[in-house]
């Protein structure tokens, strides 16, 4: 057999049928469901009298819309309450396991999948959310789908797909101190652009990727979509298996060992063909800050806001001028001279225990700057619980951070957590689009450590020589 990529292998393992029109019917092993993109899908099932084909392969959780304030109080937003209750009702009616906002296992859908061991290597995973690419960190083919496709998967446990192209992102070398997984992925997106991965599945490989923890690998795969790729993949290894061992929904005992023997085959073969290859040297990477309104608008913390007039393509030049105007920034401004009003620590990109530990290390014994409002939203109830066991909550609260309940929160600002117009935020989330964190709000994407240092100083700092 010709050498195959990891993507080729998972794809081939899941083809149920080939349609007359050339598209494939792909089997879906795991389906994650949340309150925002599922109500219309369940309604569609009801209207056509269909059931959920495989409820045991489906897991539902509320995350996008839940308030991160005291959950013992009623939800202040009636529309949000309706959407949450609709998911609870749909889960009951269709026999799907559901984590409510009062369940300690509740959290951002892409945090709880891995945490429960629902996410496994070699599986296909979908969810009505573009950051489903996160699960690729386990060597799972995982991507976001629309609501019509959610309904298709609920009804048939399959998805109609055309195979994507293979892209290899090779990250050699080791990360310097102060530089993280977030900086790797921001650098990649800066390099290829926000449409650079369109039509591709990206496989991340190389020493720097192997050296990342599972949390770091999830951060990298999470933002594949910001580079245009629906899915990112990292081959599973011992770190993957150690992370999964003993998780509630992972195979147990002998079944786990049997699974590992299969998972060990999930590697790209020597000589397999990639349609495109990107190379990056991790040793040369700085901490990165986004300056504009697209995740491709990134620069070293040691740099300055770029000058759009240097761009030759007219449409792009106009778009970057628009971005600077929206962001209230002038070309040539030093990144470390940009002052901030808000800090958001959390999201499916950086809301895991390792991220909270990194923030705690930076801020222990210090105080959040007087002009900054800083909030921490753990990715799940279990992340929150673990952080509290480790005393991280106390360190953060003592420093002046607001310690909140788990959910998507100000990553997309569907709940009450949002920026006021013109407020500037150092955010560990994934998108700096216009209005993303609140109408006319200004988002700078950074790593948790960079956000933490900015919270203390009130402006961005180069954490390589800070402290």
């Amino acid at each position, binding site marked *: 057999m010709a050498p195959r990529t990891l993507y080729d292998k998972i794809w081939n393992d899941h083809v*149920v*049928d080939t349609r007359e029109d*050339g*598209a494939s*019917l792909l*089997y879906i*092993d795991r389906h994650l469901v949340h309150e*925002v*993109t599922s*109500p*219309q899908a369940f309604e569609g099932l009801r209207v*056509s009298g*269909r059931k959920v*084909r495989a409820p045991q*392969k489906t897991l539902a959780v509320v995350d*996008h819309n839940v308030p991160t304030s005291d959950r013992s109080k009623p939800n202040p*937003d009636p*529309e949000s309450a309706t*959407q949450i209750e609709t998911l609870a009702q749909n889960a009951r009616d269709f026999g799907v396991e559901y984590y409510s906002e009062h369940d300690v296992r509740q959290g951002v859908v892409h945090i709880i999948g891995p945490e429960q061991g629902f996410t*496994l290597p070699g599986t296909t995973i979908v969810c*009505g*959310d*573009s950051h489903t690419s996160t699960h690729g960190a386990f060597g799972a083919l995982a991507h*976001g*789908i*629309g*609501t*019509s*496709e959610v*309904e*298709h998967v609920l*009804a*048939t*446990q*399959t998805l109609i797909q*055309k195979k994507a192209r293979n892209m290899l992102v090779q990250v050699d070398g080791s990360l310097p101190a102060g530089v993280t997984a977030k900086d790797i992925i921001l650098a990649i997106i800066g390099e290829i652009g*926000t*449409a650079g991965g*369109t039509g591709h599945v990206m496989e991340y490989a190389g020493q720097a990727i192997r050296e990342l923890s599972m949390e770091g690998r999830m951060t990298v795969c999470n933002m594949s*979509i910001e580079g*245009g790729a*629906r899915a990112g993949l990292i081959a599973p290894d011992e770190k993957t298996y150690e992370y999964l061992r003993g998780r509630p929904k992972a195979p147990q005992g002998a*079944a786990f060992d*049997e*699974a590992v023997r*299969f998972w060990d085959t999930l590697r790209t073969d020597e000589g397999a063909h990639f349609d495109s290859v990107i190379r990056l040297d991790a040793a040369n990477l700085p901490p990165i800050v986004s300056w504009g309104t*697209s995740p491709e608008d990134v620069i070293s913390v040691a740099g300055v806001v770029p000058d759009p007039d240097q761009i030759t393509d007219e*449409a*792009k030049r106009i*778009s970057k001028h*628009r971005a600077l105007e929206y962001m209230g920034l002038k070309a040539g401004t030093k990144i470390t001279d940009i002052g901030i009003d808000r800090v958001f620590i959390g999201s499916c990109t950086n809301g895991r225990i390792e991220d909270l530990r990194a923030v705690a290390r930076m801020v222990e014994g210090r105080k959040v700057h007087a002009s900054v409002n800083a909030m921490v939203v753990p990715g799940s109830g279990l992340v929150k619980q673990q952080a509290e066991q480790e005393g991280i909550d106390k360190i953060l609260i003592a420093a002046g951070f607001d310690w909140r309940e788990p959910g998507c929160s100000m990553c*997309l*600002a*569907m709940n009450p957590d949002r920026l006021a117009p013109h407020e500037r935020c150092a955010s560990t989330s994934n*998108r700096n*689009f*216009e*209005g*993303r964190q609140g*109408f006319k709000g200004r988002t700078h994407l950074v790593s948790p450590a960079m956000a933490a240092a900015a919270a203390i100083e009130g402006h961005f700092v180069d954490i390589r020589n800070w402290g």
Partner: protein
Amino acid sequence: MQKFTTLTGVAAPLEIINVDTDMIIPKQYLKTIKRTGLGTGLFSEMRYNEDGSDNPDFVLNKPGYKAATILVAGDNFGCGSSREHAPWALVDYGIRCVISTSFADIFYNNCFNNGLLPAIVSREDLDKLFDDANRGANATLTIDLEAQEIRGPDGGVVKFEIDPQRKHKLLNGLDDIGETVHARGPAIDAYEQRIAGNRPWL
């Protein structure tokens, strides 16, 4: 699903690249549990002022463009989230075709489940279509999906790309779920039996 065969209408120019799904339909509209009614939220942050009044500078608020059924937009339209609310909002407003040089994958896919045609044209042709669209209500475009043609007001013809199966689906307004359930049921059963043996831990 509504079929798409031909469409003649006013085309609104949206000369912005990387129009993301947060721009198309901001999050405050995602709290609905319905597919309909999202047209009022379409491009809301550009379309309305802070006090809720119409922003007269936004293209769909300009005379002649309110009834647009076609959108001509910059590269990489629809990037960002998977929210199908984006095509729902476009269709609910009355837009049935978006023309660009490129689309983000998930948005592109979602269009075909909603009778919305994303037409891919070359950069040169897009510039030509921007010129046509800038002439407002005096310059309607005609989209012919079967012929894969966009016919301009002055007799100019632009070809667009679309893969055959997606074209077939739009032309006939096909429902994927019905097809999969009826025609693929046995294949899915067989697959499930096979993995129960091969990968019992699933």
